[in-house]
């Protein structure tokens, strides 16, 4: 069994390395999208590949001296759910923050390498992170509603982005999609801080989807939720994936297996060990370490 794994691992392992190899001789940046489609193609499961909308190339992140991400190459397909799993501290949140440049806010953080969103390197000097974040919404690991009313929380993004037409309707729709409307519809003026932790997390989801971003990054959105709310959120995520690209970090393997189309496995030290179709990762991973992690032998 182990030997079998090792061999199969070796046979397909070059996936990341081919990508780096391909990128280093041709750093022009333009033909990236075609290249990565090729890379996807070599992954054998060509049936359901979406066009990659986010692509990282040899992405390294440092917090001061310590390196949190090591040479990450990853292509996240459009309008699909991509899950990131891995043990605590392996850099999943860090990677998520690279995508919408939230690492800019951390003084100690330094990002090297490229990250393309719709073919544009978001670390280029002419990219305004504010404009980027309006396209890429985020739900944080810990619920962080504003100390305002429930209504104002959901309306916040709409107001700052000047999308003030039909604001009531948009708020209602967002709350309904986040499975919170029934609980709060009579108390929209109540402070969001008076909600329970799980309700707060759903409020944050509503807040993020209210502005209709292209991509939604979710950092363990269901960690504070009960099974019913979790399944509602999972339904929501699947529904969202029809319109949006969803990237979700989770510690829940079953969740990743249930809802995601692609799965990236990070392991300690900040390396991306394997990135492939979810079925493949969970049924027949190339790497022994990934199998160990998924089956709970490690991590």
């Amino acid at each position, binding site marked *: 069994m182990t030997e079998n794994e090792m061999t199969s691992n070796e046979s397909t392992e070059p996936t990341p390395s081919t990508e780096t190899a391909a990128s280093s001789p041709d750093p022009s940046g333009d033909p990236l999208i075609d290249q990565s489609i090729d890379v996807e193609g070599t992954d054998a499961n060509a049936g359901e590949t979406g066009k990659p909308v986010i692509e990282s190339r040899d992405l390294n992140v440092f917090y001061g001296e310590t390196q949190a991400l090591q040479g990450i190459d990853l292509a996240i397909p459009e309008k699909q759910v991509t899950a990131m799993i891995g043990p605590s501290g392996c850099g999943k949140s860090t990677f998520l923050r690279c995508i*919408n440049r*939230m690492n800019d*806010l951390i*003084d100690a953080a330094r990002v090297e390498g490229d990250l393309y969103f719709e073919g544009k390197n978001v670390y280029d000097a002419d990219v305004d992170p*504010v*404009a*980027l*974040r*309006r*396209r890429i*919404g*985020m739900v*944080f690991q*810990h619920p*962080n*509603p*504003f*100390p305002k009313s429930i209504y104002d929380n959901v309306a*916040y*993004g709409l107001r*700052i*982005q*000047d999308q003030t037409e039909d604001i009531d309707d948009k708020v209602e729709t967002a709350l309904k999609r986040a499975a919170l409307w029934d609980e709060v519809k009579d108390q929209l003026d109540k*402070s969001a801080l008076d909600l329970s932790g799980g309700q707060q997390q759903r409020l*944050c989801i509503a*807040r*993020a989807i209210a*502005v209709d971003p292209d991509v939604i990054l979710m950092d363990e959105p269901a960690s504070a939720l009960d099974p019913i709310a979790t399944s509602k959120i999972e339904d929501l995520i699947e529904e969202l994936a029809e319109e949006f690209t969803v990237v979700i970090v989770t510690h829940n393997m079953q969740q990743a297996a249930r809802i995601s189309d692609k799965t990236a496995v990070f392991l300690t030290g900040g390396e991306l060990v394997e990135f492939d179709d979810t079925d493949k990762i969970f049924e027949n991973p190339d790497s022994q370490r990934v199998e160990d992690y998924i089956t709970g032998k490690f991590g």
Partner: protein
Amino acid sequence: MATREPETGWHGEDSDVNHLRGRAFEATCLAATAFGLVSVLLLLLFVANDAFRPFSADAGWLATYAATVLVPLAALAVYYYRLDEPAGEVAYVTSGLPVVGLLLTGGFAVLFIELLSVLEWFALLISLVVAGGLIAAHGRLRPKAALERLAVVLLAPIVTVFGLPPTSFNRFVTDTAAALGLDFGLYYRVISLREAIMMLPFVPTDWVMLLLTLVLPVAGAAGWFVEQRRESRRDGLAVVGLTTAVAVVGVVAGPLLGIGTDVWLLVVTFAVLPLGVYVEGVLRRGEGVRGLAFPVAAVLGVVVGSVVTGALGFAGPDPWLDWGFLTSATSRTAADAGIYPAMVGSVMMIIVIVLTTFPVGVGAAIYLEEYAPSQGLMGKFVTLIEINIGNLAGVPSVVYGLLGLALFIRVLQWPQGSVIVAGLAVGLLILPIVIISAQEAIRSVPDSFRQASYGMGATRWQTIRQVVLPEALPGILTGTILALGRAIGETAPLLMIGAAASVRLAPNSFFDVASMMPRQIFSWSSELDPSFRHGVLAAGVITLLAVLLVMNATAIVIRNRYQRTG
């Protein structure tokens, strides 16, 4: 089984947990606290006794008022505390509101007597409203033009209040200063709306202008508040209508009773209206209605007391601190001496400080916390600045006086001892304190709020404006008010910049020479007549402390208010 006592246990006296040192430490701390509190209390009692001289009254007088006022109120207080806490809160608010309202009334009355005519106030307010209207209209018409909007926001108030300069900027500054000094000498320039209103041949009478600019806006705000609270438009309109009716009736009936119309309008706005809305709310909710007995008992007690003492011929005390002291200027004879001009001087000084120190201090704090780089060479420089702001907070106040003397009087040639110089010198003194407390308030806003905001695609300005400042504002206000408390008691800088030892007339403009409360108290302390040094001085100190107490209470109320809802 659970109640059985084993001979040697882990729980009893012979356990190996040692509490002795902890108990000794606790007792020492308690002793230190008690010592501090008791000595301050004794000092206050001593000064208050000098100021009020309660024992100069007949024993009968004291006994009468004790029976009619003290005993009933104390009984009520005990009753509320023990049995009816909501009523206690009602009693507290209904007694406090009129006091605060009357203080505000007094403040505005002084404003109209000393600083502005009602017409000037009217013109200023109308100009500001028009400026606000211009800004709003621009926002409506061209919501996207950000740079233009900035220009409109900055220029509209300046144009409506000060007008346009002829050619050079220099001229404009002169005008601004002149306008601040309320000296409306007109230069060759575009006249402002405010000045145009002032030159109108026909102006409404004072009370109409006050009704329009003070009573109606406040009543409107109260009405809006009631409407929001009860979701009943009718109640809101009723508030506005009733207030206006009471105000107008008073204007007509007031002169018959000897109440000035202006004073009546101020009382209606600041005391009657808030109290009325509150009492009506209490009656409607029916909770704590018994609390209303407290203010009623207080008023009744005073009335009955004065009738009884009058009938029996008991003489009251002869306090140093009385109405005459608060409303008259200092004098050669101790009995006639008062603190009014110094009080006006202090208030005007506080106005200067608030207008200058608050924006500068809060602006600096926002910059240092939200914008300043924290890394690299610039980061080091910023840290250096922050450390030095901390040091400046500890610089002795005489030094600030010297700075004021050199900068404002020697260099800028402003009049020695004027309100503006005093305000700026003392403002510089508390600037570091304002910056530091505002920084602390801003820092205490959790980072997760900022992240949430940035994550939504907010700009830094939007994040500060919508998330950070609203959260930090109570803390900023509390810190600033406490710093203002320090400012109002500062004496050394006033001595250095040559504030008047005693003035007969309250200042009428910010460039007038004035005295301030601590300066006046200081000069009383060196009078030869001992009744100055004991009586008048004590009265001045108590007045100053009362002002301080009101300011600090305001700070505490603000803090508690926002903590509850935040």
